[in-house]
């Protein structure tokens, strides 16, 4: 302690000088004139340069901490990107549906697919719209791209529809270009086939197939698919393979058209068939 006192006594002149200089600098930097502003700018610039030089020296512990933080941030950002992508895709889908809603004159109910089967011979989809939403049996199920199927069973809040890949589906269709009629059905394997097409019929790959006005179940003019392959079925008929307009693998939302078969027409046709 005594030694410290002696050291202080030895240095008292310099201590006093330092204190007085500090006071002077305090007064100087209390001013707000152009010189002090300039000196402040220089001081900040110098301090920044020194500090940036020091930060170049790696600190292992800080780097570990920073890495951990960055990894966590990375995970969070990756999740956010994933959510944003999902939102973007949903936005695209919903925009298409909205455009479809505006373009289509028929009233309809929109629904989300909550379940679907694609690998059986009688494939169906379950939709989260039912009788409470005025969905009834035999109503057509469509998407922006075209025909998807037909309602075959309804509950209060859900309904089940046969899709085109169902052996029970029979749809009267026609070629948009040549107006050639045929019956669309699923062969139970992987193809949609247009039957009852004569060998001489003008049907080529790429022709658009739409629903026919002969059908009492579906409104006419709904796109069903395109011709992808034509060949001879037998001596009389052609084998026409159709690729559906709707991609059932990625299908998520559908519209149920509020269109029911004309009862008079159905009764008349049924009674005539019975008479025969």
């Amino acid at each position, binding site marked *: 302690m005594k030694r410290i006192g002696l050291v202080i006594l030895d240095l008292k002149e310099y201590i006093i000088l330092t204190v007085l200089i500090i006071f*002077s600098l305090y007064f100087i930097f209390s001013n707000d004139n152009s*010189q002090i502003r300039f*000196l402040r700018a220089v001081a900040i610039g110098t301090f920044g340069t020194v500090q940036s030089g020091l930060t170049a020296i790696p600190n292992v512990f800080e780097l570990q901490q920073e890495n951990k933080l960055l990894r966590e941030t990375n995970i969070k950002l990756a999740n956010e990107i994933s959510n944003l992508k999902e939102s973007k895709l949903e936005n695209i889908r919903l925009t298409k549906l909205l455009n479809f809603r505006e373009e289509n004159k028929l009233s309809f109910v929109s629904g989300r697919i909550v379940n679907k089967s694609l690998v059986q011979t009688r494939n169906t989809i379950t939709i989260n719209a039912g009788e409470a939403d005025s969905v009834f049996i035999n109503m057509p199920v469509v998407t922006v791209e075209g025909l998807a199927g037909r309602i075959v069973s309804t509950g209060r809040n859900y309904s089940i529809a046969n899709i085109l890949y169902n052996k029970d589906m029979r749809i009267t269709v026609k070629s948009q270009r040549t107006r050639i009629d045929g019956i669309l059905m699923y062969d139970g394997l992987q193809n949609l086939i247009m039957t009852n097409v004569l060998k001489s019929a003008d049907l080529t790959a790429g022709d658009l197939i739409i629903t026919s006005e002969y059908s009492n179940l579906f409104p006419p003019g709904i796109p069903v698919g395109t011709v992808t392959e034509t060949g001879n079925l037998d001596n009389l008929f052609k084998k026409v393979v159709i690729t559906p307009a709707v991609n059932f693998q990625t299908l998520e939302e559908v519209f149920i058209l509020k269109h029911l078969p004309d009862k008079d027409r159905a009764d008349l046709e049924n009674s005539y068939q019975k008479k025969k």
Partner: protein
Amino acid sequence: MRFNIIKYPIILLALILLQKSFISVIALSKLNITPDIVLIAVIYIGIKEGKIGGSVYGFFAGLLLDILSGSFVGLLALAYTVSGFVAGFFKTEGDRFLSKYNFLLVTFICSLISCFLYYGLYSQGTSTGFADVMLLYVFTSATYTTLISMVILVIPKRKTLERGFTD
């Protein structure tokens, strides 16, 4: 020493008043270069009393001048503190540096330091270059102050006077 505690502040106050009132009469050129008579007194005190006396009296004299001038408070305080402290290095037995031309040398050195600090900081952020500041202000002011300090050489010292009376 007690007498000095009263004497120095009175002398400094008188010189500060003189510096602020009449010194502009002998200003040189349009750059308004004036001698610093307060600094001469601070240097004298530094040589006479040492580093502490020089720096403390320098600080308060400078601060008072700063306050009276009203701009850049603390700048003269800093310059005078350092000058007074440096002058304290020339404190010797028999006040060798207060005699004859030694005092002029010390005054020139301390004035250079003081002017360098003052004008060096004052010219920051202005368009005046370093060489201009040194030539036009620092050397000129220091030289002028040194020349004026020659007055001290003609003031007869107590010892000389006593010797004169006894002879």
